[in-house]
């Protein structure tokens, strides 16, 4: 077994060294495709958080006073329930508001700890029949200045723009990264193919003396795996740098201050990138060896 590990390390190392001119482009392509994918995941997460309160066509939120009486709450409920201009509505009590707050600020435990459900306002989230700006404004105005209502907040154009812009950016990044995935697969396949061609005499001898196909394959597959994982590591670094440098700049804009990525999401994204790097490497090299090793 010791010999086998030594053999694998030596052969894989030799292949990578001999093939360096092809290995570097393959690793870089994997890195770029995965980095784009990683950024699109982070961007999607940030946008989701930013627009979380407004998903499902919600156009305005009626925030009650935290100390509003049950009668006042019921009165508003009755009004939204009977209004023909309201398509759907949902009541968020203090506990739900607190849960949402905790989710939104989960990477800021000090802030979460300083808040209790009592001080958070219950709210009604309203989806109107007519989403036109004028109709929404008119409908929202009906609830302003009602007893117990603290504030009526409308979905701003910025939120809608951010939602659609991030959707387009995400689609763009996805398409680009899928194309680059395919390119990286082909590049790895080509690298493995070249490595096998360079060693065809050796492979011929190995087959003749009774080496199993797996024994012949594994060093080449390891080569592909190393290329994939190396690309993924570069992509993880690039994604972290993007997260550290670009997102804080986005948040500096007051209106986009909720556009945030927490450290948990960065971890999840990194794990995804490493797993995808492994898959690209192994699949690319598997295609390469299976086409060559028809014993």
């Amino acid at each position: 077994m010791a010999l086998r590990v030594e053999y694998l390390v030596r052969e894989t190392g030799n292949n990578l060294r001999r093939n360096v001119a092809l290995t570097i482009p393959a690793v870089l392509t994997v890195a770029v495709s995965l980095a784009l994918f990683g950024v699109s995941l982070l961007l999607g997460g940030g946008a989701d958080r930013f627009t979380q309160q407004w998903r499902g066509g919600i156009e305005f939120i009626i925030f009650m006073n935290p100390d509003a009486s049950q009668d006042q709450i019921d009165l508003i409920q009755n009004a939204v329930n009977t209004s023909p201009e309201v398509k759907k509505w949902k009541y968020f009590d203090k506990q739900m508001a607190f849960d949402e707050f905790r989710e939104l600020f989960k990477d800021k435990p000090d802030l979460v700890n300083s808040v209790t459900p009592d001080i958070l306002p219950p709210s009604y989230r309203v989806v109107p029949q007519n989403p036109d700006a004028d109709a929404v404004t008119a409908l929202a105005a009906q609830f302003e200045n009602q007893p117990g209502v603290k504030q009526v907040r409308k979905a701003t154009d910025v939120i809608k723009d951010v939602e659609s812009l991030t959707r387009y950016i995400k689609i763009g990044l996805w398409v680009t990264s899928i194309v680059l995935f395919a390119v990286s697969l082909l590049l790895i396949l080509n690298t493995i193919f070249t490595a096998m061609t360079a060693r065809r005499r050796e492979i011929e001898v190995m087959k003749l003396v009774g080496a199993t196909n797996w024994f012949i394959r594994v060093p080449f597959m390891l080569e592909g795996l190393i290329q994939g994982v190396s690309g993924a590591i570069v992509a993880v670094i690039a994604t972290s740098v993007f997260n550290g440098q670009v997102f804080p700049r986005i948040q500096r804009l007051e209106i986009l201050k909720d556009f945030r990525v927490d450290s948990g999401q960065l971890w999840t994204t990194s794990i995804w990138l490493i797993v995808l790097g492994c898959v690209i490497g192994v699949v690319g090299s598997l295609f390469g060896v299976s086409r060559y090793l028809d014993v």
Partner: protein
Amino acid sequence: MIKLENVTKTYKGDVVALRGASVDIQKGEFVFLVGQSGSGKSTFMRLLNREEVPTEGQIFVAGKDIGSLSSWKVPYLRRNIGCVFQDFKLLNKKTVAENVGFALEVIGRPRHVVVKQVPAILELVGLGDKMLKFPDELSGGEQQRVSIARAFVNRPLILLADEPTGNLDPETSVGIMRLLDRINRTGTTVVMATHDRGIVDTMRRRVIELNRGVIVRDQHRGVYE
């Protein structure tokens, strides 16, 4: 040890390389395979090593039907069959010892076995003092000895030699034949394809002659023709 039952091999385009061949070779025999170029000698050898599968008929090696062997078992069959070629098939970037050790290494033999067996087999073929040389520093005869050492280091049941003296002068060829004879005396079955009339006539072993894919002669203690 080797049994062919009515074996036919047809390549694409209906080219018949071997037609209805039936042969029974016992353990420890030394068999010459003779015939003109294109008579089917190489196909015969490739069928025994399972580099080809018969179109019709059955081939048994050590009692196993190798035609129906699943592909993952083929490497294990080949560990029992050593191969020697006219062009040696040595790896020029490896030393003599590495070339021979490679054959053990790639079938997963432990290092202590490799370290013990490689010098022993190189002594046997008369190259004990050239272990660290590279193939291109050796003569043709010496390179063929390395190739024989590699084929025999795993102590196979069968040794297939396809024109092993084809690239060598008569004097060197005699040395190679002595070596193959010595290997045969250890109980290894040797099947050798050759055009070398002198060798066949001198050795007087079993001769199987092929002509256009058909076995036209199978003679014990035979001559070239």
